[in-house]
């Protein structure tokens, strides 16, 4: 009775103290009605992670209260011993807290299925509703259920600042006494550091990790390392410093490069230009560490806007290089080719994988721990319709929007046919010239004259091809204009310009004039020869 009363008093106290003490920091997320706190004014590197651990024991696990108590005590000891001050499990305040807001290790009585399946079904919104006024930064949801002769320990991490719920992580142990240690290992693997982005300088950002000033006794826990990956997000605040909205920045990742105690620098890898640059009022820019948790990710291409274009059969290339590096390589290769004229190098040697989307427009990307971050190049014919970085394994499903490229692609097909015909016309033309040359060498001048007049009399092949090209170009451009697709218009014009250049080069009428001069010279030469012979 006494305990019950005490807890109620604590709850009441915390509620009021929260209202009074943190009036400035309580905010509401857009999607959830629950209040969400903004960041405290204290520098993030000095602010330890407030940790709450909810452990759900499956009844079938047959762990009695004594066992549970033992597990929790041992877990607390392990955390304190291994993580130290970086994680705080109890609030140093005199105010009472309720079970719902308290830090530390708690038993989870609300999870409907006290198992990995129950954890898997959880959504971030569910947690925000359940813990509207929480004090923790990280909530670890753990379940213990039996598996064979041992136990399955499953866990998920909920980060309060990003309101992100991590994927499920499962570990197994066969010994009851190892449960607390297994839980701790799960927490260690689930834990994702949070950074604030201090300054942005081009492709580099300076960041500060939460609680970075606190060193952990076990350096393998919660310590940043080079090449750690982070997902940046914005927290939009209102005038009262309440969180209005949280937005993860799509196709943008931070890669840890240098670390010191308080600050660290990261490289930005993003498919969007200057997304982190510029100053924003009442916007907190943070990043949360991400790790590939899934073996693979299903990436689905979807048409942008109201387009009904199929995204099946589209080519998606994977590369470790970003577009800038690719461009540099291509330019270098081109220069090298122009200078030394070596055999053309494989311009796509930077491509490490190539996929065709299936009938649903999806591909499956395998997670690669060695090279977690890759660049996706979505191509439609010769055009690059999307290029973004991605870390396969961080989501099970993801979609990417692609613009409608059908008109341009049709033009590409029609130009391929036209180019084929052009090759034939050029070959045929060369053949005719060769035949006339042969006649000229054999002194068959009537035939030569007939041949040349035949060449001149017909409609100029150049004109024919230009007309055909115009038809293709005008039709396609009009169609693109009707769809207000300026990108397509520009690309179509580019493609047609290229073909027009080819027509000019190969079917230049000046060629016939030169040829006639050549034949005339040959004729004179032969005439001189015959005159010389007759005079002799």
């Amino acid at each position: 009775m006494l305990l019950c009363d005490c807890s109620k008093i604590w709850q009441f106290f915390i509620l009021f103290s929260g209202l009074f003490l943190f009036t400035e920091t309580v905010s509401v997320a857009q999607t959830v009605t629950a209040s969400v706190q903004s960041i405290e004014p204290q520098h993030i590197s000095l602010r330890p992670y407030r940790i709450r651990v909810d452990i759900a024991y499956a009844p079938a696990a047959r762990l009695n209260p004594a066992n549970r108590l033992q597990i929790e005590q041992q877990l607390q000891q392990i955390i304190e011993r291994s993580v130290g001050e970086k994680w705080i499990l109890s609030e140093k305040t005199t105010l009472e807290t309720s079970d719902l807001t308290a830090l530390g290790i708690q038993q989870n009585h609300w999870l409907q299925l006290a198992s990995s399946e129950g954890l898997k079904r959880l959504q971030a919104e569910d947690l925000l509703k359940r813990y509207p006024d929480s004090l923790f930064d990280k909530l670890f949801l753990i379940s213990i259920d039996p598996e064979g002769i041992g136990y399955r320990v499953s866990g998920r991490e909920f980060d309060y600042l990003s309101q992100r719920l991590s994927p499920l992580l499962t570990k197994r142990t066969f010994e009851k006494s190892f449960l607390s240690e297994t839980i701790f290992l799960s927490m260690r693997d689930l834990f994702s550091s949070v950074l604030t982005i201090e300054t942005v300088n081009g492709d580099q950002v300076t960041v500060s990790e939460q609680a970075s000033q606190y060193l952990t006794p076990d350096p393998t826990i919660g310590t940043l390392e080079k090449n750690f990956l982070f997902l940046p997000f914005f927290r939009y605040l209102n005038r009262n410093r309440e969180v209005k909205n949280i937005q993860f920045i799509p196709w943008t990742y931070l890669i840890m490069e240098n670390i010191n105690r308080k600050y660290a620098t990261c490289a930005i890898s993003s498919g969007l230009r200057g997304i982190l640059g510029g100053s924003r009022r009442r916007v907190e820019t943070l990043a949360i560490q991400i790790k590939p948790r899934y073996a693979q990710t299903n990436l689905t291409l979807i048409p942008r806007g109201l387009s009904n274009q199929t995204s099946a059969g589209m080519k998606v290339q994977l590369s470790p290089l970003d577009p800038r590096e690719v461009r540099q390589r291509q330019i270098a290769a081109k220069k090298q080719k122009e200078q030394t004229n070596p055999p053309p190098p494989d311009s796509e040697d930077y491509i490490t994988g190539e996929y065709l989307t299936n009938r649903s427009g999806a591909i499956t990307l395998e997670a690669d721990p060695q090279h977690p971050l890759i660049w996706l190049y979505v191509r439609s014919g010769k055009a690059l319709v999307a290029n973004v970085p991605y870390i396969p394994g961080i989501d099970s499903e993801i979609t990417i929007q692609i613009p409608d490229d059908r008109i341009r692609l049709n033009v590409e097909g029609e130009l391929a046919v036209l180019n084929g015909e052009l090759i034939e016309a050029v070959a045929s033309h060369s053949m005719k010239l060769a035949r006339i040359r042969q006649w000229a060498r054999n002194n068959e001048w009537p035939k030569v004259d007939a041949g040349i007049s035949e060449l001149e009399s017909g409609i100029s092949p150049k004109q024919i091809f230009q007309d055909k090209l115009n038809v293709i170009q005008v039709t396609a451009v009009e169609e693109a204009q009707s769809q207000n697709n300026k990108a397509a218009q520009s690309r179509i014009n580019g493609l047609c310009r290229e073909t027009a250049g080819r027509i000019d080069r190969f079917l230049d009428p000046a060629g016939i004039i030169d040829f006639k001069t050549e034949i005339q010279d040959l004729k004179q030469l032969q005439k001189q020869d015959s005159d010389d012979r007759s005079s002799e």
Partner: protein
Amino acid sequence: MNISARKIGFYLSSLTLILVASGLSTVFAQDETKPNNIPAKSDTAKNETPESESPDEEKEPSLPRIEEMQIPSVEDLLKKKPVDWIVMENDLVLIVEPVYPRPDTLGQLDTALKESYNWPKPKSKEEIDEQRKMRAALNFIQLTLVDEKENPEYQIQRKSVKQIIHHEDQILKRIDQLLQTNQLRTAFEMLLVLDRKHHDWPGFDQRQQQLLFLEAKDRQKSEQYGNALAFIEDLHGRSPEFPGLSRLAGEVVDTMITQSVQEGSFRKAHSYLKRLSDMFPRQQTVTKWKDSFLNQSEAILNKADQAAKQNQFQQAIHSAIEASTVWPANPRLHETLLRYHNRYPVINVGVIETALDSSPYFLERNSTRRHQKLTQIPLFEVSRVDQTPQYQSRFFEQWEPTDLGRRADFILRQSYATWESHPILMAADISQSLRNKITPGHSEYDERFDSFVNSITSTAPFTFSIYFDRVPLRTEWLMATPIHATPLWNHVSNDAANSTAPPKHEILVSNRFIVDQHLPHQVSYVRAVPEPTDLREYNVAQINEIQYPTFEKSFQALLLGEVSVLPFLPARLVSFFQEQEEFNVVQSAIPLSHVLQFNPESAPLKIIELRRALAYSIDRQKILTESLLHESKLLNGRLITAPYYTGLQTYNQQVPQREYNFPLAVALAVASQKKIGGAFPSLQMLCDPNPEAQEAAQELIKGWARIGIKVTLIPNTAIEAEKQNLKWDIVYRTVNMTEPVMELWPFLTVGKGAQIASLEIFPDWMRQKLIELDEATDWDSATALLKKLHHQLYSMAHIIPLWEIDQFHVFRTNIKGYADRPLNFYDNVEQWITTPIYPKIESFTHK
């Protein structure tokens, strides 16, 4: 020289002596002047002899005696001058140049002398003298001595000559010796020499016959019985009564028949027996084997009767056919064959290859199309093509699209006609099989089907519904698939007959006929579900596809009655069969399109100039008219620009034909060679086993060789089929598409099906067009897309459509019930009715 001169002198003196000794009063030279000279010569001889001859020489024999004469060797006979031997009454021999008249000089002189007494009576003294002189001349033989250089010509009185052994006789004697020593080849050559020297020389025929006989014996000894029989027949033609010939023929043929029977080749045995009986009808061997064959066939017929009593009609007809093979002349055969054939009709089909043969040609061909049609019934099948394909179903009583095409409800038939040969199909069979097609990872998973179908539910034993994700352009085409599942009906049926006999083969619900037996060169198909036992008339129960190495052999088999149908008939032979009363020629509803396709993985053929060079270098019109149609029926073939029937609505008639242009082909080949950066690599071509395709392929290769591109044809042999990673660059395909909107994609991917992954080989624009075509929801846009794609594919030379040739099948008139214009050869096969063909006993021929 001296010896020779002396010998000549000696011979002359001897001759004089002989003439004197033999009491001849005169020896005259041939001409008028000779009589004066001869005595002079004799005088000279007389005068000179005592001076020239020494006492030792007198002791020498004057002339050789006939017993001493050696038969000249083969070499002497062939190389030395021919000489005759004149054997005197005293057995001395004069060696002279060939005397005339010959042969039988003495006989001819005697006859002439006898006839001289019948001369007309002389009217004057001059005539009397003349006749006397002429008659006197007949008493003399003109001769020229060999090795006598001066005046070698003499005449000798007929009376003093006992015998003349001519040069030809000497050859004959040598031949006799050669035959005795079994030097048959030399004897044969000498006979040839003799025949050339003097045709019909007396004794020549005997030697020749003797030689043939000995040759036959020799071949018999060396077990070359075929040759031995040929010699025997030859000899029989010359001398039927040649001693020992009948016995030898009997021995040889007996051995040959025994061997043929052991091989099971009765037709061969009959052929040998007939050859023997033609020569010696009463020969013991003939009787023996006739009895043996008759007994054997009787025994087999008895077996057939036994099998029929036990209702094993397949065994019965098999035995009856076997009996007809063993001895077609069995008088019981006709009736037995008719009885069992009516109960269990069997049709033999002559084919050039069967679907179960291993071949490196991995794509669909005539045999696989036939096999597929014969063994599987899809839920929907094309019944006719009239610009667009029209579908029918044997399984559905009703089907109806609902919910704006998003759902289709199907009601299955619950009863079938007796002639139908497939098991009863239930909704659960279909739904299970179709579910497998939309289950990723399942062996029957079909990506394209999955993209259309969301789910399948069976609402009652004979009704089911399909829910679509995408409305298909034609539900019938999507459902034109066989159901690969064992029939559930057997588990729910109360029919005792079904449960008693364990099935010999596993039968699937879509099975029409199943493979009963696969022998070398023969595949037998039987009905999946046999007809009931109490019918008045039975439809075909078994189809035997008998393989022949060439079309000519199958053609021969059809004429001989070994087979009743030929599924393949070259267009050039159509008129021949149309004129025959015992055959019907049936034209297929759609022609067979011949197309060249390139391996997308072949590096050189990625070069568009090379593909175009290949296209321009072949004179399609010439090959079609001269090689394939033989200028006889030009209407039976047409040039095409797409790999499907020109009569289809989707065929773009606006695409112009690519004309043969050799100079352009050369120019393009040179351009492509620059891109390759060296000489053209030798290209490998796979070709459909269809004889027309094979013939055309050879012509194409010649055309390509003219522009410097070497292409080798990969032989369609089992050895090539066993090779791993068979490399090919070009494939010559034959196709008969009825629904190009749906079939073009799997066609272009060369056996990789309609999967997105298979489109990787194409440029993006073409890939997207094919997907767009696949996803088209209305006919107009699908047709427009296909026509555009047709133009682009042709223009880019991704494929080289060649021509389409009408297909013809030949049926003997004993078969009824086939379709007038079948789409596939085995259309309507369950309703084919046949009567037996009785073997023509008189036309036993060697196979």
